[in-house]
């Protein structure tokens, strides 16, 4: 491998280190969850007098899918709401917030769209019509799409996992419609939502008063508490 090639790879890794880091820990946590969940599932099987199942069968089961999807949907809802809320609401002194006089969608000049787009602007920022509108809201659209898809996956896998347990308990299964109105579905959903909303709310408020030197998520260490929107 040539020195130029190696240098290019190293540069790519450095420039994408944040995404690579979280991608790696995500995969590690998901794999860890699959083994822990497999162990719990087989403990239940054994307690019911049934043979244990293999890892591959577990990770393609409704039980594992529901457990993954219920966490994904709440994370994407968290970001969906946070991205939307930070357009319209401010938090004085928070680096997560805009200035109070900048609420809303802002001017085309500030947003560098249409005639205000630069030579390096994405093409759909420069054009007009539907393409600019879609690109202007593409982050919300994708976050919202993943939220809806994973919440749907939670409900679809969840009803199967719920009904599997119902049958093991010698109780009647329920339909999907009955399940999405059930306490089990909303208990799983809301316990995830409360923690997500607490997390972003805490971040918005704590970052008013607390600092982490060098993080763009924090104000500069010496910035005033009422200094809104400053990055560290």
């Amino acid at each position, binding site marked *: 491998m040539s020195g130029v090639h190696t240098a290019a790879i190293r540069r790519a890794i450095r420039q994408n280190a944040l995404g690579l880091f979280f991608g790696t820990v995500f995969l590690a946590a998901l794999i860890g969850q699959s083994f822990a969940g497999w162990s719990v599932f087989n403990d239940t099987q054994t307690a019911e007098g049934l043979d244990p199942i293999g890892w591959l069968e577990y990770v*393609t089961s*409704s039980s594992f*899918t529901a457990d993954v999807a219920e966490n994904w949907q709440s994370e994407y809802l968290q970001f969906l709401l946070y991205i939307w809320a930070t357009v319209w609401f401010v938090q004085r002194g928070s680096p*997560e917030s805009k200035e109070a006089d900048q609420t809303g969608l802002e001017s085309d000049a500030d947003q560098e769209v249409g005639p205000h787009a630069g030579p390096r602007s994405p093409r759909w920022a420069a054009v007009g019509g539907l393409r600019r509108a879609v690109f202007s809201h593409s982050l919300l659209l994708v976050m919202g799409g993943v939220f809806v*898809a994973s919440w749907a996956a939670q409900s679809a*896998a969840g009803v*199967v996992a719920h009904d599997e347990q119902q049958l*093991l308990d010698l109780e009647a299964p329920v339909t999907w419609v009955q399940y999405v109105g059930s306490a089990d579905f909303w208990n799983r959903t809301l316990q995830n939502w409360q923690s997500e909303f607490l997390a972003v709310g805490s971040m918005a408020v704590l970052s008013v008063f607390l600092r982490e030197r060098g993080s763009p998520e924090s104000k500069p260490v010496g910035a005033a508490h009422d200094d809104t929107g400053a990055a560290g």
Partner: protein
Amino acid sequence: MHHQPIPTPVRSRGGILAVSALLAVTIVAPLTGCSAGGSTRAAAVDAASDFAAAIADDRGADACALLVPDARQAVTDQTHRDCADGVLDLHLPSTVRTTSTEVHGRAAIVHGDGDALFLARSGSSWLVRAAGCTPVTDAPFDCVLDGS
């Protein structure tokens, strides 16, 4: 918060679409294993039919071979006889309506005439956990044979 945009290569739309497709597949693909595929449901139906036929034909040993271990123990505890003889003493229903089979994950219910059979998958086999079960409002089914 307003940062100066950091110059980076513009990502291709194809790349974004590929990632979205991967996410969709990752979410949707495991669902194919969630509820019963055709062969799984057929196997549950076969196990229920075989159990009912064994009861109808007084083949106690064959019927016991299709019970989960806890159900075999329940037969022995209830009838104070070995399973092959005791299971016939319970006068369990010998007909099932296999068209009314519901499979959810690794558990199934097959309805008969006014009663039901509960099955569970153990390894790759379907075994009977409870038989002669009648529904009870807001409570588990009441079963003649209960191996749960």
